[in-house]
C-alpha cells in the first residue's frame, strides 16, 4: 500500500497525505506533548548537558560559552588516586548486591509455592511485601536504632549474654554486609511476585507425571519449577543490573558515614558531595558520565550473554 503510493504518486502528494495524517491526530499529539516535554527537559537535556564534562563549566556562562578543555576532566579522573577506590567500591557493592540478593526472592517464591495452606501463605506474603513500601530512610533508620551503641537492642543483647559490644555502625567491616542485608530485607519479599506468577503458569500435569515417576518434592522443584522460570530469572536479573547501577544513591548515601566512607563511597555519592555540595560541576559530570557508561555496558553485556545462551534477553 505504502510502496505503491510512493511509486505512483509524486512527492508533494505524499507530503500532503502525511500532513493530513498529522493534522487528523493533532489532539493525540497534544495529549503526548506534556510527557514529551518532560522527557526532553529532564532526560534528554541532561544528556546534552554531558557536554560540560569536556569543559570547565562556569554556571554564569552556561553550556554554550564555557571554555572547552577536551578530555582534561577524564584525565584527571583516571589519574586521581580516589578514582580506583570509587571504582572498586561501586563494583563491590554492585556485585555483592546482585550475588546475594538474586537467589533470595527465587528461594522464597519456591518455598511459598510449596505451601498448601492458603491462609498461611497469604499471611506470609502480606508480611514480606511490606518493607518494599518503606523508604530507604525508614529501613536505614530502623537498622540504626537497633544497632547503635547507646541503647540499641543488638548490643544490649550482646552485653546481656556476656559478649563485647560491637560498633556496627562505625566499624567499616560491617558497612557492606549491613548494606546487603538491608537490600535483601526490603526487596526480597516483593521480588517473589513475578516468580510466583511465572510458577502459577506451569502445567500441573508435569508435576503429576513426575510424581508418577516417583520424584520427591525437591526433585520436582529442581527438574520442573526451576527450569520453567529460568527465562524470568534472567530477565529480572538483567533489569536489576540496570537498576542497581542507576538507583543506589538513595540507599548508599544513608549508610555512609565518616568512618566507613573508605569502603562505601561510590561514584553516585561522590558526585553528590563533590558536585552538588562543592560545585565541581564539570569534573563530577565526567565521573557520572563514566558511571552511566559502565552501567550501560553491564546491561548490554548481560543481555548479550543471555542471548548467547539461547535466552530472549530484555531487548
Amino acid at each position: 500500500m505504502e510502496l505503491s503510493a510512493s511509486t505512483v504518486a509524486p512527492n508533494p502528494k505524499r507530503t500532503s497525505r502525511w500532513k493530513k495524517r498529522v493534522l487528523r491526530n493533532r489532539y493525540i499529539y497534544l495529549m503526548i506533548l506534556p510527557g514529551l516535554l518532560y522527557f526532553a527537559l529532564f532526560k534528554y537535556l541532561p544528556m546534552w548537558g554531558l557536554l560540560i564534562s569536556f569543559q570547565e563549566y562556569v554556571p554564569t556562562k552556561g553550556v554554550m560559552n564555557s571554555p572547552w578543555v577536551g578530555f582534561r576532566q577524564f584525565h584527571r579522573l583516571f589519574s586521581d588516586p580516589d578514582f580506583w577506590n570509587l571504582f572498586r567500591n561501586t563494583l563491590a557493592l554492585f556485585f555483592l548486591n546482585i550475588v546475594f540478593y538474586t537467589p533470595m526472592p527465587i528461594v522464597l517464591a519456591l518455598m511459598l509455592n510449596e505451601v498448601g495452606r492458603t491462609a498461611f501463605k497469604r499471611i506470609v506474603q502480606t508480611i514480606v511485601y511490606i518493607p518494599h513500601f518503606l523508604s530507604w530512610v525508614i529501613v536505614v533508620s530502623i537498622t540504626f536504632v537497633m544497632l547503635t551503641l547507646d541503647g540499641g537492642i543488638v548490643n544490649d543483647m550482646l552485653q546481656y549474654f556476656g559478649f563485647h559490644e560491637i560498633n556496627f555502625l562505625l566499624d567499616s567491616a560491617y558497612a557492606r554486609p549491613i548494606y546487603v542485608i538491608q537490600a535483601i530485607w526490603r526487596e526480597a519479599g516483593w521480588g517473589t511476585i513475578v516468580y510466583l506468577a511465572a510458577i502459577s503458569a506451569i502445567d500441573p500435569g508435569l508435576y503429576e507425571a513426575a510424581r508418577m515417576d516417583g520424584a520427591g518434592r525437591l526433585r520436582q522443584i529442581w527438574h520442573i519449577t526451576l527450569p520453567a522460570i529460568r527465562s524470568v530469572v534472567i530477565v529480572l536479573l538483567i533489569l536489576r543490573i540496570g537498576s542497581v547501577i542507576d538507583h543506589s544513591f538513595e540507599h548508599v548515601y544513608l549508610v555512609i558515614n565518616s568512618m566507613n566512607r573508605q569502603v562505601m563511597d561510590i561514584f553516585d555519592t561522590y558526585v553528590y558531595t563533590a558536585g552538588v555540595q562543592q560545585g565541581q560541576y564539570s569534573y563530577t559530570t565526567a565521573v557520572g558520565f563514566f558511571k552511566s557508561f559502565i552501567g550501560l555496558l553491564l546491561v548490554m553485556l548481560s543481555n548479550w550473554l543471555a542471548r548467547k545462551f539461547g535466552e530472549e534477553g530484555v531487548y
Partner: protein
Amino acid sequence: MVQDKTLGSRLFDIINYTLLTIVSLIVFLPFLHVVMGSFATAEEIARKPFILIPEHFSLNAYRYILSTNAIFRALGVSVGITVVGTFISMFVTSMMAYGLTRRDLDGRKTINFLVVFTMLFSGGLIPSFLVVMNLGMIDTYWSMIIPTAVSAFNLVIMRSFFANLPEGIEESARIDGCSDFGTFFKIVLPLSTAVLATISLFYAVQYWNSYQNAILYVNDANKWPLQVLLRQVVLVASGFSADTTHDFVQPPEQTVKMAVIVVATVPILLVYPFLQKYFAKGALVGSVKG
C-alpha cells in the same frame, strides 16, 4: 494436594513452614520493636535490653515530637507533594501512554524508543541538577515533583495495558462522534481502573518515600519533607534543628527516634491494605509481566 504423604514430604513441609515463619519474624519483629520502643520511657531503654513489651507505657516521645512545629510542617510537605505529584504524574503519564498506543501516529516508534532508552542511559546527577537550577526550581516544592514526574517504567506498563483494551470500543466511540479527548476520558480511563489504581499507588509511594530530590534541590529546612526530617533526627542526630522554635541541638533520645520512624511509617501502613487488594487481584502481576 496428595493424600498419602510420604515421610520425606512431611519433613519437607515442617522445614518449609518453619523457615517461612522465621522469615516473617525477621521482617516483622524490627517493626514491632520500634513501635513498642517508641512507647517506652527513655530510662527503661537505657537501663536494660529492651525487646518487645515495655514495663511502663509512656507517650513522652510523641509529646516531644508533636510539640515541635517541624514534624507537622514536614508531614504537610510530604502529604502535599504526594497528592499533587501523584495527580500530575497520572495526568501526564496516562495521556502519553494512551497516545502511544495509536498505531497511525507518526513518530510513535521513535518516541517509544526514546522513552525506553532513558531506562538504559541517563545524563546523571549533575546535568539534571543544572537543568533544575537553570529552570529556577531550586528551593521550590516543584523541584520535589516535576524532575521525577514521569517514570518510563510506569509509562510502559500503562501503555501495554491500554494497548490490550479491545479496539472495537474505541472505534465505535469515534464513529459515534466522540473526540480523541472524549474517547480517552470517557471510554478508556473508566475501563482501566485497575491499572490506574496500581500506578497511582506506585507514584504515591514514590513521592512519599523519596528524599533524593529534596536533598538535591531544597536547602530551605522549612520545606523539607518527612523523610529528610527523619534522616536528620535519626541518622544525622541533629535533633529538630530545622525547628526555629527550639534552638537547643541536643541529640534526640532513642525513644524519640523510634517515634519519628513510626510517624513516617504509619501512613504507608494505612494505604497498604488498599495496595494489597490490587496485587491480590492479579492486576499488578499482569501489569508487571506485561
